[in-house]
């Protein structure tokens, strides 16, 4: 049967509250109806409609027809005090291989987003930092748990590339199969390459 032991963990971590400059407890758990409700209630109205629907649906159309084999895991991170979703991530755990060593499987970060109020250009200033980083580190941890040596790969939009370079992820160049987004990989466990 399919792997019913998919990661159910509620993982505690900390994110940085900008207002008083302290780390506060946060939890990473599986994406749920509550996460979706948070998106609809708190996120959607603050997201600029800067992506044309036609472009989105064309992209989705190309990527839609797959046969799921329990290979996707989605997570949300909430701050413990208010329990509002501060970030979301979707990872793929079975079908991607390292660009550095094709023999090695990786955790591939399909999507990672922080809440609109935690983004660099948000007005007022971002409420929490380390939301995206905490999710990324969690992806790395999943890679270690799955026996993939902590290898994590992802495609970055141009505006986020500098962050991944600063994380010492390997820049593997633009990928024509992914809208020419740049592919990055944390090849060495821990990202401290």
């Amino acid at each position, binding site marked *: *049967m399919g792997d019913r032991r998919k990661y159910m*963990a509620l993982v505690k*971590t*900390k994110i940085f509250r900008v207002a008083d400059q302290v780390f506060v407890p946060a939890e990473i758990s599986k994406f749920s109806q509550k996460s979706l409700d948070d998106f609809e209630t708190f996120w959607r109205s603050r997201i600029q409609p800067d992506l044309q629907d036609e472009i989105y649906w064309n992209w989705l159309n190309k990527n839609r027809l797959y046969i799921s084999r329990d290979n996707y895991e989605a997570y949300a991170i909430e701050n413990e005090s208010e329990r509002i979703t501060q970030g979301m*991530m979707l990872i793929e755990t079975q079908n991607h291989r390292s660009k550095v060593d094709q023999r090695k499987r990786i955790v591939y970060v399909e999507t990672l987003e922080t809440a609109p109020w935690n983004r*660099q250009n948000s007005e007022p200033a971002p409420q929490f930092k*380390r939301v995206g980083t905490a999710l990324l580190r969690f992806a790395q941890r999943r890679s270690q748990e799955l026996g993939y040596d902590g290898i994590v790969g992802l495609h970055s939009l141009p505006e986020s590339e500098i*962050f991944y370079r600063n994380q010492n992820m390997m820049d593997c160049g633009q990928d024509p199969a*992914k809208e020419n987004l740049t592919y990055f990989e944390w090849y060495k466990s821990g990202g401290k390459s």
Partner: protein
Amino acid sequence: MITDEFDIDEAEMLRDVQIEDESGCNISAGINHGANLGNYLFEKINIISYDELKEILTDSKVGNVLSSEEIDEVTAKIQEKILASRLELKNYPIPKSA
């Protein structure tokens, strides 16, 4: 449900914040889903899995009649139909192969 902790070394977390500050950009990965993100994630993880569907068929009386390859074929067809009906419900463009 398991509960554990990670990344709670303060120096490392401060370094994480410093890197975010130095980068001065949004932390995101993959295509920008915009206002569609929530539904995209929900759909992606709630689609009935191939393995689950195959298990149901194998354990049912159908499993005594069809071979494993035939069950594979039926499973794939059922899932395609489910996908196609979901796309119609949401007025998404329907792929030609669905």
